[in-house]
């Protein structure tokens, strides 16, 4: 699936404020939307309407808890392949067919396909890599993280 290409121009000032505010910590209180709406000078109804619209237009890809899969017993790993240009479409289809492949990006480098594998158990990673190598006939380079310095996908709208 490709990301929607909603343009930044369709966002008004209030949408931007809302996107920025909702990237922070959403409160764990009985009426969290009302609490956030108050800090932005909006009504709860207006905030929910805008949030629905941002999700519908795919300006936001999701809204909710972000789980760290490893701390729930799962595993993920960054992996890359060197795919011959002539085979690219075939290999994209083969790799994307694996449910373990969560994201896949084409990048401008000899290693031109970069994807993240997510599995319910750490052993699942090696199995998925072996299966992808068998399906595509190409080696997979795994880049497991050895140390995490920072992860915070927050971008100002």
């Amino acid at each position, binding site marked *: 699936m490709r990301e929607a290409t909603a343009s930044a121009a369709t966002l008004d000032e209030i949408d931007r404020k809302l996107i920025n505010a909702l990237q922070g910590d959403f409160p764990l209180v*009985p009426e969290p939307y009302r609490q956030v709406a108050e800090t932005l000078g909006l009504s709860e109804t207006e905030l929910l309407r805008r949030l629905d619209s*941002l999700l519908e237009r795919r300006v*936001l890809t999701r809204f909710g808890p972000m789980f760290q899969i490893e701390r729930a017993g799962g595993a993920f790993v960054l992996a890359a392949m060197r795919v011959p240009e002539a085979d690219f479409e075939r290999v994209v289809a083969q790799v994307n067919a694996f449910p373990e492949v969560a994201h896949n990006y*084409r*990048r401008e480098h000899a290693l031109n396909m970069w994807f993240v594998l997510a599995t319910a158990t750490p052993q699942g990673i090696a199995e998925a890599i072996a299966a992808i190598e068998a399906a595509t006939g190409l080696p997979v380079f795994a880049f497991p993280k050895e140390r995490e310095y920072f992860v915070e996908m927050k971008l100002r709208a």
Partner: protein
Amino acid sequence: MKREAKLDTELDATDRRLMVATQAGLPRVPRPYDALGDRLGMAPEEVLRRLQRMLDCGVIRRIGAVPNHYAIGYTANGMSVWDVDDSRVDALGAQVGALEFVTHCYRRPRRLPDWPYNLFAMVHSQNRDEVAARVAQIAALLGDACRTHDVLYSSAILKKTGLRIAG
């Protein structure tokens, strides 16, 4: 992975049900935790208590919105990769990760001879010139601890479904 990663992160079956029920998103109704509780046969206080515990132990990184970075104007995405002296990479990695424009920063194994890089820092920006300027800032920070680096721009998103566990 941080050292405390293994501590007190046991999830019971109820936590897992809550995880599966919320991984696609939080209900967009005035009392979302009540709605979850109704769906799962749990008191709203229990929903809040369990979500708070999972946040505290890091199973949940945060609760909030994930923007489509293209839609909010960040159309250039460069994965900068660096070959940094092993004895200095941890101290410098923390500094690179602290830069406001770096969204992910990890140490990963080299794959010699093809891949000499051990530090990865993702930079999102409005355009490639701006990414390049930010990469130059990282280069200045790393100084002589870095032997060589590269930036891999993404030219297409081939798949993006997010991380899911099976219900």
